[in-house]
């Protein structure tokens, strides 16, 4: 019974991991750039959340996800417009990687200087402890609602990209950056919005993760690696693949922790390495 519970919790946790990765998957899909500062933005949004909780002590953290997402959207647009768009058109694929790595180094150390290196936690009050019994299993209400929110966001993103005019423009830009110019689309502006969307999704994940696990300015590295593993395991550019990749990692991590309480993310990393060895194109390569 304890294993069933562990696996269910892994699935619930993994939905959050999927959310960490889907923003990165969007950027990889649209502009073929891996944003190495993704993890730092996830942590930054958690810090913004902590600050907002301090300013509005009466408001529940889950409500504050919305303003944090709006701030993250703005930061994403700014990051893309001011920095990344300058290098994304260079033929050299490393310029953007190294640039975002530089941004990550600056952000991580700025957060250490501003917020200190202590571990933090976002308090969710009674909701964090509440649990519900399904067929004799204890499942937390908070993890369940986080998974539900992840599914809603995944569905929303999928609909946005496949059913709307904006989604059509984004997909066209991803396929042919130079051709869409002829149709009057400014690829730079599309990239700005895509990065905003990516970091808004990351910030939601960052806030929710801060409720479930403690974080410090140094957590960005771990968050980035998880997000990246989700993207690669899920198969590049597929959002539901990212969700499944996240769930696989979440289950691997919690089962690993059950077997070996101080393993940390070791088993998730090992699963990723084995996955890459066996299926370099992702475990869930499906057409969407």
């Amino acid at each position, binding site marked *: 019974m304890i294993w069933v519970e562990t696996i269910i919790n892994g699935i619930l946790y993994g939905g959050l991991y999927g959310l960490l990765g889907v923003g990165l998957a969007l950027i990889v899909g649209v502009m073929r*750039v*891996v944003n*190495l500062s993704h993890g730092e933005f996830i942590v930054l949004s958690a810090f913004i959340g902590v600050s907002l909780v301090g300013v509005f002590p009466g408001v529940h953290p889950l409500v504050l996800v919305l303003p944090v997402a709006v701030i993250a959207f703005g930061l994403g647009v700014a990051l893309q417009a001011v*920095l990344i768009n*300058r*290098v994304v058109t*260079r*033929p*050299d*694929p*490393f*310029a953007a*990687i*190294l*640039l975002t*790595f*530089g*941004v990550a*180094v*600056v952000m991580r*150390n*700025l957060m*250490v*200087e501003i917020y200190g290196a202590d571990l933090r936690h976002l308090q969710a009050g009674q909701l964090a402890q509440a649990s519900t019994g399904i067929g004799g299993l204890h499942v937390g209400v908070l993890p369940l609602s986080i998974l539900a929110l992840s599914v809603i966001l995944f569905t929303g993103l999928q609909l946005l990209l496949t059913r709307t005019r904006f989604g059509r423009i984004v997909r066209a830009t991803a396929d042919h950056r130079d051709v869409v110019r002829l149709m009057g689309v400014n690829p730079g502006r599309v990239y700005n919005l895509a990065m905003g969307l990516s970091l808004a999704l990351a910030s939601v994940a960052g806030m929710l993760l801060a409720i479930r696990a403690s974080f410090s300015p140094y957590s960005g*590295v771990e968050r*980035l*690696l998880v997000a*990246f*593993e989700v993207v*690669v395991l899920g198969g590049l550019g597929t959002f539901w693949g990212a969700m499944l990749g996240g769930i696989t990692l979440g289950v691997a991590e919690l089962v690993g922790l059950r077997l070996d309480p*101080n*393993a*940390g*993310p*070791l088993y998730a*990393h*090992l699963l*990723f*390495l084995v996955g*890459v*060895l066996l299926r*370099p194109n992702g475990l869930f390569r499906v057409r969407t």
Partner: protein
Amino acid sequence: MTGLRRSAPRTDARPGGPWHAPRAWAIAALGVAAVAAAPWGIGEGAQRFLSEAMLMLAMAQMWNLLAGYAGLVSMGQQVFVGLGAYCLFFASISLKLAPFWVLPLAPLLCAAVAAIVALFMFRLREAYFAIGTWVFSEVVSLLISKTERLGGERGIGLPTARLVDPRWLEPLTFWISAAIAIASVFGTYALLRSRVGLGLMTVRDNDIAAASIGVDVWRNRFIAFVIAAAGCGLAGAVSFTATLYVAPGFAFDPNWVVAMMIIVIIGGIGTLEGPILGVIIYFTLREVLTVVFGLSAGWYLIGLGLVAIAAILFEPDGLWPLVRGRLGGDWLSVRREPPVPLQLPAPAPSAEAATSSARGLGATPGDG
């Protein structure tokens, strides 16, 4: 695969530049004499500082070999720094030998690990390779922090350092560091002048064209990856010998690769002189910011990160190309002249012609 270059390759500098005999030999002899005599001329603090800078130069040069010449951006290069250090500590303690005697084991272990890791990491391209190596580094770090024999998370000391006469510990570290730094620069130079180096650079500049003329892309990258791992392992082993203590948090710190990357980008990626210039700037900035202005290490990393971002945006070739003109051309040019003037139009290319031209390039004067 063009490094960070945007300009067309220059053809002005002659291969070798001012760096050829007999003046080169005179400079080299003076340099060796200066390094040998240095421990009598400068204090222990200065020796320690220079050792650190020279080991950092070696690591940066290895990262430059990967990113600037082999088209492999590794964000997990710290794994070899840490493995080298742990290899030296473990071998020295279990064999009860002075640390310097077991030093050769560190690069050997790192080369072997790199050879195995390459088999599956090379399935990943570009950014995926970068983060794949990083994940590998995290896995090794976590595994070592769970191994009690290696001290777990607390780390281990180096009691066998007492087997070395304490008066000679600092000078020996200094000399070995200097030798590693010099070997990293001239070893990379020799490698790049060889057939492997030519192959690497053709792959960097256009991997499809390189493969079409018979360059074995995988093999050349494999050689570069293994050499870079050995170099970082050696430098890491010496670096932690100097501190007499190693723990996973320090040995596998991503800041190792951050430093390598920033040094190479500021100095000039894809040049052998760039990392030398980068190391000078890196350590000058560090001393100025932390000693003169008393800022914390965090602010200094922020400053360096900003400089690196500015370099990528405005000076993607780094600062070396700006300095080069004043110093009379490249010191360590790995550029080659075509064996005969190019004649156009060429006859219709056939498979046979393609193979022979590859051989022709390989036999360029100055090869080896």
